[in-house]
């Protein structure tokens, strides 16, 4: 059954067990972020090191190319920027309050 924020105690699975897999996607953790990874498409070589290392699977890849970052789930840990090769440095961590949508 579908669990929503309105589901009452009579209908919840017992013991707080979550019966469906993959539901972490429904939990938006992007708001926890204080630094946002910004990728420079010109510099990026699509080596995919960031994709391998991202603990939140937030580097979106299609056909072996990075197409974006999942800001709904990226917590801003900065691992992607750290593993980006030193001569490339395509990802910079920008303070959330200085990003475009908050300026």
């Amino acid at each position, binding site marked *: 059954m579908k669990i929503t924020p309105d589901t009452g105690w009579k209908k919840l699975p017992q013991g707080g*067990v979550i019966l469906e897999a993959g539901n972490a996607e429904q939990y938006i953790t992007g708001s926890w972020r204080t630094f946002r990874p910004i990728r420079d498409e010109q510099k990026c070589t699509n080596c995919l090191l960031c994709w391998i290392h991202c603990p939140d699977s937030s580097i979106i890849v299609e056909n072996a190319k990075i197409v974006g970052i999942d800001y709904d789930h990226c917590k801003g840990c900065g691992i992607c920027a750290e593993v980006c090769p030193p001569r490339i440095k395509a990802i910079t961590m920008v303070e959330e309050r200085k990003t475009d949508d908050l300026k």
Partner: protein
Amino acid sequence: MGKLISMEGNQAAAEAMRQINPDVVAAYPITPQTEVVQTFAQFVADGRVDTEFITVESEHSAMSACVGAAAAGTRVMTATSANGMALMWEILYIAASTRLPIVMALVNRALSANINIHCDHSDSMGARDAGWIQLYCENSQEVYDTLIQAVRIAEHPQVRLPVMVCYDGFIISHAVECLKLLEDKEVQEFVGEFKPVNSLLDIAHPHTFGPLDLYDFYFEHKRQQIEAYGPAKQVIVEIGKQFSALSGREYGLFEGYRLQDARLAIVLLGSAAGTAKEAVDRLRADGLPIGLLKLRAFRPFPSEELIQLLGGFEAVAVLDRAVSFGATAGPLFTEISSALFRADRRPLLVNYIYGLGGRDIDIEDIQKVGEELERTAERGKTEQLVDYVSVRE
């Protein structure tokens, strides 16, 4: 039919576990529980059970392993005492909140300090709010019988809660008594095969156990957990009936002894009930209209039933083998008095703390309680709410 055999209480517990043949046992030895684990480990070593026995480095790990094994969908048992259960504390709550039907033999022992290995109920009473069902036993026969019933109670689809089978350290655990055992086959048929509701090993349907549960859902889960205790009460009675059909021995939420025509009553838990029955007989011989209520289920607490049963009494003495420091009175007393607050006719209530750290209580002590209770009834008021049995001034 089963056989009559003499054995120690701990051996009776281990024998019940052998016949139940649980999938997993994770336990750590502690006096006075040690012999349960030791005897059962021998059954494992001798290939007399199919159980996976997990040796652990502490009770915290023992209960954690039990939680993991139960979440994996197996039938799980363990045993501990006092400080051992104190070390399990965090995981006791997790087992109950995750609705895992673990059965634990708790051999009641005083908590430190100072170090004391003998009986009182401070360990289980401290854990009364952890969410476990608590059943108390009077003797080895009840330990054996209750462990077998506990498996069915814990696993019942309407209950799904862990059960603590409490029995008095040394007084029951190390005393040799005669008891009737069932045949292995009878026990196997009675407990049946365990069918888990959710299983971590069900890889076709992956489940998450114990996730983060904040202000948006935690309260609903607690509300749901509270609700399991209603059916638990009925299930304890129902399984008790089924067990008496098999064994001829009666089990319910409590046992009344000479209560029918009584105006005075003594209420207590555990092994002291045997002593109290003799005291009641002697007081009856002296013409005192007194009876005994031996409570078996402390969690769930049978409030409604006790209102029915004790509501019309003149005076009731509640004997506690534990203290709740800074509270109005002992934990059993507080529970009984709060239930009886809703009775139409409330009896006068007195509380006696007895037996801490294994201090003996004898027949004469309980006779004295009965005689004082009669004076309280005659006076028509309780003069001293809490008194202490056999403690030096």
